[in-house]
């Protein structure tokens, strides 16, 4: 029996601005139990500061209620400058948050923007991994993320969604060339690109994620299992890499 952990590195709680996408901790836990997910990185569906004033608090409360199931990441809007910086300090130092989500699309901020650097420098100082969703749109280019990776080599950056379909091949290539860039697998639909990524950048660079509720752990996990990997590679992607990156026991 395989006792290695399965960790979903990309899940959300809360609701988006119009409630088109929403998920509470009970719904997420139910899905995790149904599909054999031991733990999930949880992030707010909206940036803080923003219309959902409870976004970070909701993540904190869910984590405190289920500390063995959830891993809390903050989500901050760099356009708020010092306020976002202070909130990061509070989230890490007082609340115990373990990572940061920066969304270039929702904050309309390319990942290389000079104004983003203080927040990213602070994240690097705390040794926080930073999830940056990428995909189909001007603010979703993996090359924009690479510029940030070059500016702050100590910052661990996860390319969320592996660039999705339009940018996946280039995301894989970039993760192979930059030590501080990792790939997260959700919403990139091709099973075939998973072994392609393993052979290009190594299984140690790849993290399983669902992007739930934008995606779903069932098909996303099937995508990894059906990719024809060695068992050891599959175990790394499904959980061991996340365990190592986050320093989990």
């Amino acid at each position: 029996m395989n006792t290695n952990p399965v960790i979903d590195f990309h899940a959300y709680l809360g609701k988006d601005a119009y409630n088109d996408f929403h998920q509470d901790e009970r719904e997420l836990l139910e899905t995790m139990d149904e599909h054999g997910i031991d733990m999930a990185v949880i992030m707010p569906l909206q940036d803080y500061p923003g219309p959902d004033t409870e976004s970070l608090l909701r993540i904190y409360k869910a984590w405190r209620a289920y500390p063995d199931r959830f891993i809390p990441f903050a989500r901050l809007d760099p356009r708020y400058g010092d306020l976002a910086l202070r909130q990061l300090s509070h989230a890490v130092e007082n609340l115990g948050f373990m990572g940061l989500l920066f969304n270039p699309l929702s904050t309309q901020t390319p990942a290389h923007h000079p104004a983003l650097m203080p927040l990213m420098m602070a994240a690097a100082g705390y040794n926080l991994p930073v999830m940056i969703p990428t995909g189909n749109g001007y603010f979703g280019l993996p090359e924009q993320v690479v510029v940030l990776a070059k500016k702050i080599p100590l910052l661990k950056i996860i390319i969320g969604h592996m660039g999705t379909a339009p940018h996946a091949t280039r995301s894989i290539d970039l993760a192979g060339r930059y030590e501080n860039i990792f790939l997260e697998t959700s919403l990139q639909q091709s099973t075939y690109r998973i072994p392609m990524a393993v052979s290009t950048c190594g299984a140690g660079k790849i993290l399983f994620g669902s992007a739930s509720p934008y995606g779903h752990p069932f098909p996303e996990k099937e995508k990894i299992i059906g990719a024809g990997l060695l068992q050891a590679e599959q175990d790394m992607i499904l959980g061991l890499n996340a365990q190592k990156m986050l320093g989990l026991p």
Partner: protein
Amino acid sequence: MIIDAHVHMRGKVFQGDNRGDKPGLIDVMERHGIEKSIVMGLTAEDNLEILAEIARFPKQLIPFILLLPGQNNLDSMLEKSNEIVAVRGIGEIYAQPGPAQSHLDYMRPVLEIARHNNLPVLFHTGDFSYTAPMMLMEIFQAYPDVNFIIGHMGSHHFWLDTIELLKMFPNTYTDTSGMQSPLILRRAIQECGPEKILYGSDFPYWDPGVEIPRIFAAKLDPNTERLILGENATRLFSL
């Protein structure tokens, strides 16, 4: 019964990936319990070659042909194709009219053939530039007697646009390849009705082993699930 409404055969998808070739496709269908697939090429140049392969599996593979506005002799291409196997639709069309003309003007030669031969048309949608589904609105309006499939449900960014179009035009349908969230599928069913939605995988880009679980993840009632997984395609394509 599962019918996959969006499958490709041959064509270069990923370097070194030959799963789109026969017998890869038939193997995948059998493995996942797919009874029939709507099959289309990725390039117009190898239409006849692909149709010849499809014709070898008449019970499993339903042929579409790729017709593009720039091609010469569209009518004779369809005639030649029909001599190999009776073509059941046109697609997948990745419309790229450029900035100087409308999608309707660009696509008109192909749309006239679709209308004249009573063939449904499947459009790729979901990328920026020219394949945002809203750009097809004029076409849906100008050809009410042609059935259209909005490929990929608009993909990640345009699912709301696709739902609006499905509600506006009785002659529009969509396939689920590119639809990734149970919330989206349930919302589309609620707003448009389940009859408008066809299961599709976009194999060999995506895999039925992943795309079928996306349907199951929505936990639909059995009747709705049956419609989406096969009965809607049976009705739409007269299978």
